[in-house]
């Protein structure tokens, strides 16, 4: 099992760091899956997470100048590691003007991801900083826990409002209530509602647009035959929603959510070379 990668381009490094920062805000610990062409940050929906799950996919070619991976076995050419993304985020934080950043899987005393940053310096040789991030190797028998979640059979799919606006609305609502109701319909309308004994607040968004989902074998027919005005809603933990919104450092190219009434809200945030899916289950 080997893994070595190198980033030389500062823009790529910056972009990669921002992805890691977003992941770090969403999960304390997560799985990192490495394949020949992609990296995945996965949080599976354990009870410990409050049922939240995350799937983030990056094309390694868009970030790394060098990327070599050898999986656990020839027919399973993948590596699954458990790590604390905050460590990786910290290691990259002060590397933003680096000449090169190398990441390598090592196993001296325990498995680590070694991030070696070569920094410019006024002296004849560069300054070297190494960060040894402890990781856990996830054995093959557990790989099934980290399969890509399927898109749920949603009632409504809608594009999200500008995330910054949404975030500031939710941030203020957080002070009033622990849960928030997201409801939306197929006419491009979305409401964010909180309700307590003392007050109820609703913020209305209009003209958001609904993404067209190609129907496959009519599995989305329930959505197509739906009344356009009818709202699908789910009440979710407001902190989890805020975590998702606050963690976004860059405006995604596309941001949408799929609501399964009273069950789950599935957020999809797409950037050029990164896709992030985040599932928040509805509260009872």
């Amino acid at each position: 099992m080997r893994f070595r990668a190198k980033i030389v381009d500062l823009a790529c490094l910056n972009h990669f760091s921002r992805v890691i920062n977003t992941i770090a805000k969403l999960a304390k610990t997560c799985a990192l899956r490495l394949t020949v062409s992609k990296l995945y940050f996965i949080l599976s929906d354990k009870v410990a997470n409050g049922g939240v799950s995350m799937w983030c996919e990056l094309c390694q070619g868009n970030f790394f100048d060098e990327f070599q991976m050898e999986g656990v076995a020839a027919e399973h050419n993948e590596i699954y590691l458990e790590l604390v993304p905050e460590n990786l985020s910290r290691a990259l934080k002060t590397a933003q003007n680096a000449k090169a950043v190398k990441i390598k899987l090592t196993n001296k005393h325990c498995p680590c991801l070694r991030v070696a940053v070569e920094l410019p310096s006024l002296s004849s040789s560069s300054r070297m900083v190494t960060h040894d991030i402890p990781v856990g190797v996830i054995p093959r028998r557990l790989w099934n826990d980290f399969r890509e979640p399927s898109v749920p059979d949603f009632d409504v799919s809608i594009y999200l409002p500008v995330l910054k606006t949404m975030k500031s609305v939710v941030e203020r609502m957080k002070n009033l209530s622990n849960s928030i109701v997201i409801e939306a319909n197929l006419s491009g309308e979305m409401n964010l509602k909180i309700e307590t004994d003392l007050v109820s607040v609703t913020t209305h968004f209009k003209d958001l647009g609904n993404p067209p989902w190609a129907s496959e074998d009519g599995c989305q027919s329930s959505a197509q035959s739906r009344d356009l005005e009818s709202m699908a809603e789910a009440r979710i933990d407001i902190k989890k929603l805020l975590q998702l919104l606050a963690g976004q450092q860059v405006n995604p190219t596309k941001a949408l959510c799929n609501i399964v009434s009273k069950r789950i809200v599935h957020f999809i945030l797409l950037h050029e070379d990164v896709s992030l899916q985040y599932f928040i289950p509805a509260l009872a």
Partner: protein
Amino acid sequence: SLCPVHSVMSVCPPQLSLRAVNSSRSAFASFLFAPLFFQLYEASGPPPHLELCRCKVLMKSFLGVFRSLPSLEKTVGKCLILLKPRASRLVVQLHCKYGVTKTHNLTFQECERLQAVFDTQRCASSLCAPARVLAEAVVHFPQTLAEVTLAAGPGGKISLRNHVEDEAEPGKTMVTELWLAEDEFQMAAVAPGSRITFCLKEFRVSSCPALPSPMSPLSPPPQPPLCPQGLLTFAEASNLPLTVHYDVPGRPVIFTLEDAVLEVHLVLATLSDPESNLQPPTANGVSHLPAPSDDFADDLESYMIAMEPSTYEEGSGVPPIPTFPLCIPDPAESDTEEEEEEEERAVLGTPPHKKFRSLFFGSVLTPGGRGLAPTLEVLAEDSDGEY
């Protein structure tokens, strides 16, 4: 830069000094100002009073006068500091724009001499670098880091590494290590293979129960830590190089800043290394590590592999190359002031303040053109609601 409970200002013609020690006596700092630092320095009064005056001021109150640096820079033309021994008052008078004068009366107490006994001449190793280099080095370590190990490695390189407690599980803590080449330093005279561990940032100061507080009957609230970070900030702003003197593990590390009118010392206790203490290093049978190639870009691989053994042999105490015997420390000083702890005690409790107040006399008092600490920020805010 430093604001523990135990701060002493002593007026000792011809110098003004400010000293502080933390309650566990594992850190001591002193700022010594020559009269030239100030526009006007008068240690006057009737002859009997022209003597050494040592007083203790609650640093928090003192710094409270200078709380908002940016606004002070804009409004204060002159700052006058008067010591009135008979009234037990320290008067700080700020002469501001538009004819406004703000006068602060602080009470002080007479106190004993506060002086840590240390001798930089007796330190086996010393390094001198522009504060910027050290500040840039320190930035790679997390804000909450307790202890860092400074070590002299092969090829004249100096490394800084976060110290991991032995009890901590090896597979749980992230380890960060930074390497600085010898030529980044203005001066590097270090004992090869030497290393010391001291507290970099997190150094909680708890209130000293024996200290009677003139301000309130309650125990004083926890103060911001006393540690190098504040000194680095000060050094960077004043553009002075920082010198680090150290000896064997267990002996204090001394940071100094000097210029014509100011002398600053910060003395910290270091972790003693039970295995390596007093053992002369052996050269027999030790594999010699290849010095890392200067061309890091290509040679990172072998360099990283080569560095492995020394980075993980914590406490083995055997340096990879032959060295001269390390200084054998003298029997412990009898001076009670120098009761450095063998190990730092991070007092748990409320989250520590990581920001520091800085002394910024320079911004209002320096003769024109010195530019000493003009951009120094008062970073720390009180964490308590004592008032």
